Each structure stands twice: as structure tokens, then as C-alpha cells.
């Protein structure tokens, strides 16, 4: 049981935080958002130069063999600065699929380009009116000769508008809500038959609606074993959720700190907001939620190393639920304690609030994951890990 960072991890943390302090304050971020992609390629290159894009990859793939703690450090710092670049879709989702299911050839072809910043990826998964179930896929892939032909309609593909290569989930068998029968394909985003509509999200990140019509890919585009992709999808999404929860902790920490600072400065009725006991106690409740969130994010991240995928999924659901609860309280109280100023686009508080709201939704909201936990049962095992169910 050890809650400390290693020396290397501390150095990483300081480096990322310094980079963001230098290049990513609220005013700088505003100008990054105004770049053509809605985010900054220059910034992306800085991340590449610092090695962040290669962090989770094996050394044999040209990466730096970072583990979940390294990802946690980066994501929390990104959350703190509200980084909008496509780290999650490219490195965590795209990279995650390559790490877990990529063939030698696929890894060698793509991972080095992720690491050097020249390749962007996205995961085309969600479909219309599907909420969050990962198995609910109606996009179809069929065998035609030695190749595959994909047809379908994907929505809310995070950073799908700028991605070079898409990981597309498609059904080769079964009904639309079977867990069996799914496959994953690497699809060139500019391939014939792929049409994309990119748009801004509420929190200034980007996404795309993607239609695939008779999109033909060769056999080497298949990730893993066709028809049995669901466990891989679950595994990659679970790790991504855990990392996203770390981002949320960064967002919340910043939102909380800003609120406390504002309370110390802003005067009403002749006294600072921070001197009103009713508001003090609410600031404390925010702090409690922040510390609970930080604690469970560590738990979620470390649980992703669990060899039992169900244990991992449950731990991730628990993490998402607590993060959702904390995010709601901290986001809403942060706005309320700021008063009107927090409601404005030109002030940071509302941006943090919006990011928290989006994070609560991504990959399943609080209700969704709570229902999953309830269905899974409950209770406690106590073995090597701090296990949940």
C-alpha cells in the first residue's frame, strides 16, 4: 500500500504542470480554441515533444512504458487546465485498442506515428438513440471477397473530425443488443464512403457524426478477433473511463480552488463571501467531495490492472458514480458561489462546470453506472487489492 509517486512520476507531474502553466492559461486556451481545428496542433506537438503521446506504449513499440499512474498524472493536469486536444481519443482509446488488440504489423505501422504526433485517432462507437451500452451496435460489417464492407451511422465520435484513422465497432453477427458478434476495424477517415460532420461540443471539445456507406477495408484492418471484440471494447473503455475520472479530479480541484479564491476576494454586505458560515460549510462539502473523488480515482485507475475484467468494470463503475456525484456538487456549487460572473463565457468557472457535465455523460452517466453496480450485486471481497464487489 503506497500512495506516493516515484521520483520519475514526480518529475513527469512537474513537467506537465509547468508546460501547461506556460502555455495553457485561460487566455491562452481561448486562442487555442480559435485555431482552425478548434484546438492546437502546436500544442499537440509540444505534448509529443515531451513524450506524453508515447507514455502508455511499450518500449518495444517505441513508447515509454508508462502505467496507469503516469496516465493519471497527465489526465489530472489536463483537467486542471481544461486541455481540449485529442489525447483521450488518440492515445487512450485509439492507442488502447492498438496496445490490447493490435497485430505486430498494426502496432508498428501506427503507434510510432501516434507518438511523434503525426497520427490522430478516434473511436467510432455510439449510435443514434443508444445511450451508453457498448454492445448496442447496429453498424454492420460483411465479408465481401477477402475484404470487409462496413455500413453504419456513428455519432458523437470524440474528435472524429480531425482523426486520421478511426477505430469502428461493427456487428458481423447477432442482434443489435448482443454482446457477441462485434468486430473492430481500423478505417482510414478519408476512405471512400466515409462522410464526417464535425462539430463543437458544449465544453469546446470536438466530435463528429460519421456515416459509413459501403466502406471497404482489407483484412489487415481488423483489430483482434472478429465477432469477439466486446471484451476488448469493454477493457479499453474501462481504462479510458478511469483516466477520464482523473481528468475530472483535475477539473474539480481547479473549480474548487477558484471558488475558494473568489470567496476570499468577493465582498457582499460588507464582508467577504468566505466569512459567511453558511457558505464556508458549503465550500467544505465541496472539498469533501473533491477528496472522495481523488481517492476513488486512484482506486479506479489501479483497478484497471486487475486481471479479472468484471472486477475491473465494477471498480470503474463505482469510480464513475462517485466522480459523477462529486462533479455535480462541485460544478453546481462552484457556479452558485460565484454568482452571476460564473455564468459568463469569459470567466473560467462556467467552462469547468461544462466540462464536468460532459464528463459525467461520457461513457455512461451516474444513473447508468449505478444501475450496473446494482445489477452486479455488491458486497466486499478483501484480497490483495482493495476490491469492491
Amino acid at each position, binding site marked *: 500500500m503506497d500512495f506516493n509517486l516515484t521520483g520519475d512520476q514526480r518529475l513527469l507531474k512537474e513537467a506537465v504542470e509547468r508546460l501547461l502553466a506556460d502555455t495553457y492559461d485561460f487566455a491562452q486556451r481561448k486562442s487555442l480554441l480559435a485555431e482552425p481545428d478548434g484546438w492546437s496542433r502546436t500544442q499537440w506537438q509540444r505534448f509529443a515533444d515531451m513524450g506524453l503521446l508515447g507514455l502508455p506504449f511499450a518500449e518495444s513499440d517505441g513508447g515509454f512504458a508508462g502505467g496507469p499512474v503516469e496516465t493519471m498524472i497527465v489526465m489530472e493536469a489536463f483537467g486542471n487546465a481544461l486541455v481540449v486536444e485529442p489525447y483521450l481519443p488518440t492515445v487512450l482509446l485509439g492507442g488502447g485498442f492498438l496496445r490490447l488488440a493490435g497485430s505486430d504489423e498494426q502496432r508498428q505501422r501506427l503507434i510510432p506515428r501516434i507518438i511523434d504526433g503525426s497520427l490522430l485517432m478516434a473511436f467510432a462507437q*455510439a449510435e*443514434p*438513440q*443508444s*445511450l*451508453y*451500452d457498448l454492445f*448496442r451496435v447496429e453498424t454492420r460489417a460483411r465479408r465481401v471477397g477477402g475484404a470487409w464492407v462496413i455500413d453504419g451511422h456513428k*455519432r*458523437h465520435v470524440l474528435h472524429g473530425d480531425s482523426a486520421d484513422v478511426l477505430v469502428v465497432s461493427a456487428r458481423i453477427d447477432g442482434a443489435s*443488443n448482443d454482446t457477441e458478434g462485434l468486430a473492430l476495424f481500423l478505417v482510414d477517415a478519408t476512405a471512400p464512403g466515409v462522410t464526417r*460532420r464535425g*462539430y*463543437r*461540443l*458544449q465544453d469546446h471539445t470536438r*466530435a463528429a*457524426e460519421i456515416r459509413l456507406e459501403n466502406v471497404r477495408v482489407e483484412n489487415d484492418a481488423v483489430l483482434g478477433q472478429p465477432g469477439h471484440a466486446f471484451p476488448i471494447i469493454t477493457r479499453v473503455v474501462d481504462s479510458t473511463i478511469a483516466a477520464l475520472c482523473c481528468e475530472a479530479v483535475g477539473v474539480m480541484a481547479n473549480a474548487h480552488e477558484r471558488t475558494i479564491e473568489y470567496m476570499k476576494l468577493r*465582498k*457582499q*454586505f*460588507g464582508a467577504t463571501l468566505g466569512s459567511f458560515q*453558511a*457558505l464556508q460549510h458549503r465550500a467544505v462539502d465541496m472539498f469533501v467531495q473533491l477528496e472522495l473523488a481523488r481517492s476513488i480515482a486512484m482506486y479506479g485507475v489501479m483497478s484497471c490492472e486487475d486481471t479479472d475484467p468484471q472486477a475491473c468494470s465494477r471498480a470503474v463503475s463505482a469510480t464513475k458514480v462517485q466522480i459523477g456525484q462529486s462533479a455535480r456538487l462541485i460544478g*453546481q456549487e462552484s*457556479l*452558485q458561489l460565484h*454568482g*452571476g460572473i460564473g*455564468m*459568463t*463565457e*469569459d470567466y473560467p468557472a*462556467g*467552462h469547468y*462546470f*461544462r466540462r464536468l*457535465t*460532459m464528463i459525467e*455523460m461520457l461513457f455512461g*452517466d451516474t*444513473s447508468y453506472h449505478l*444501475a450496473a453496480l446494482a445489477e452486479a450485486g455488491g458486497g466486499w471481497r478483501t484480497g490483495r487489492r482493495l476490491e469492491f464487489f
Partner: protein
Amino acid sequence: MDLRYSEEDIRFREDVRTFFRTALPDDIRRKVVCGQRLSREDVVRWTGILHAKGWATPGWPVEWGGTGWDSVKQYIFKEELLMAPAPEALVFNTSMIGPLLIAFGSDEQKSHFLPKIATLEYWFCQGFSEPESGSDLASLRTRAVQDGDEYVVNGQKIWTTMGHRADWCFLLVRTDPDAKKQRGISMLMVDMKTSGITVKPIITIDGYHDLNETFFDNVRIPAANLIGEENKGWDYAKYLLGHERSAQSRVGLSKMRLQRARQLAQDIACGTGCLADDPQFRERIALIEVELKALEILTLRVIADGPASTGGASDPKASILKLKGVALQQAATQVLMEVAGYDAMEYDGEFLKGAAEPAGGEDWALTIAPNFYFARHVSIAAGSSEVQRNIIAHSVLGL
């Protein structure tokens, strides 16, 4: 004690409902259903339709164009309007400056302004808050100095809702800087085209432009535009903040949102069925509906209780209506977020502002997140929930 509506009330509700069904233009209804913002033209057009029917200003005295409805009928009208759903009346005109002039305005002011207020020929905005005076409204600093038969006003207002659309503004100014905080404040009306007024947009986190900063630089306002007496402005402001408190619970709005959530949830897959059939989802809605029902009865109790409905002294207990009403409004927007899921994430500024078609997203979902974001303001504006709690603690509980 009898909580039944009378036969007359039931007929009245039917009439109102029929009128909204037939008279509300389809394009406006669709915008309201989708949660899009209305253009000035939309609001004026709808107000014109109501005015033609004689229903634009139900709460005003009959001699000034009111309907003479009792408070229960007014409540029914408002509820049906919110559930139609039809656009709400412009609160600054119908519920604020109108009743204020009726109560305290000069005869000249009444006869000139009231008809134009009722039809929105004069669109009013409110100039109360200032950057340094949020919940502590009485600490305002905008100065008005009398110079002949004019006041010269200098200062800055903030959160001027629709200030960029408005023709007129009623504003609080400090006319006696030596008087104690709440004294020495007066209320003026100013033509927004007067030289020296600058309106600067504030974009809110929903991506929309409702609010403004308004700067007054040696703005000359005829003394005839003073409302009531000089240095009595604080009394008028308190009158306004207490006026139509019962309306602030806006039960009908929350009802409409929950109904919409339930309806939309029928098309969302969940388990082997749809979200609308998910017991946990239904419990979350039911819990809010229970509180709404309690709040509805409480609202009617407050309406029935007192002169608040007719514009008399404000019942401090009515602060509960605001406090709980806004909490439930926010809860209902949260349920809609849950229903929309990923479909709420797309930002489509043009659709939000009223474009006929979305850029590509789901029209039913695109405004849900912006409205959820914007709904955070209802517990801040018009007396924050903290201020309401202070009022109840002091005035009702005696703490």
C-alpha cells in the same frame, strides 16, 4: 377547505387551453417545445395575439387592460401557458414596470407608458445589479445628479437581460450619496436611445446573448421619468421583488419539462425496453413530481392567503416558492440531460438562437444542455437562494 377547482375554473381552463392550441403560431410553439430562444419579433407577435384577446396583462387592473381574473384563474392561465408551451410574458413589462407604474406612477406616466408596455411597443429592461453589488443590491453606486429638470446619470449596470433589444430601461440610481445604504436610491425610466448609453454583450455559458453590461456616461434623463418620489426607490424595488413571487415557483414549467422527458424517453433504448419504462428512471421523475405537487399546493396556499396576488405587501413565506421552485426547475433540466445523453453534447449556436433546422444534430436534444446550463442562473438571479434563506431565517423564523 376544498381543493377542487370550481366548474367555472374548469371551463376557464378549457377555454385557455383551446386558445393556446389554436392561437399559438406553429413556428413559435415549435421553438418553445425545442427550447430554442425566441427572437424579439416572435415575442412581440405572440404578445400581440394575446393582447388582441385581452390576455396580455392578466394581472393588471381592468382599467389598464387587465382581465379581472381572480388569483386561481391567473394561476390556471399561467400553468396552461407554461404547459402549452407558449412563450412567457416579458416579465420586465408585464410583472415589473407595469404594476410598478400602476401602483406608484403619475397619471401622465400611466397613460403614456402602460399601453405601450402592454403591447411591447416599449420593450423594457431592468437596470438594478452592478458589478460590485450582486446579492447586496442596496450597495449600488450608479449616481444621478439633478440638473434643472433632468437627472444626469453616471455608472454601470450589469446582467441587463435583453438590454440590447430594449427600448426603455427602469433603473435604480443613487440620488443621495449621504443617506444610509437603502435610502437615497431612486428609480428612473430611461429611453435606451438616449446619448451616453452603451450596451455591451455578455455571452453566457449556454453560448447565448441574453445579458449585457450597460454603461451610463452623463446620460440625461428628464425628471418626469422619475417613478414615485425621489429617494424612495428601494421601497419600489422591494415591492417588485415581492410582487408575483408566487409566479416564481413556475410549477407549470417543471411539469412541462418532466412530461417532455418522459415522452422523449420512450425513444431511448434501455435494457430490453425503453428508458421511459426503466423503474429507476421513473422513480427519479416521480420523486420530483411529488415535490412539485407539494409546491403546487403551497403556491396556491400563498396565492389564496393574501394580498400578494393583488400586489400588496409581500409574504416572506413566499420566498419558499422561489427557493424550492428554482431547485425543481433545475432538477427537471437534469432529468432531460439524462434522457438526451450524448445527443445533448453537440453545440449548435444557430439552432439555439432559433434557426429552423439544426446543422445535423437532433432538434429535440440540441437545446437541452444549454438550457440546463442556463437554468443554473435561476438560483442566482432575482434574489439568490442564499438571500431567500436569509429572508426566511430573519422574517419568518425570527433568527
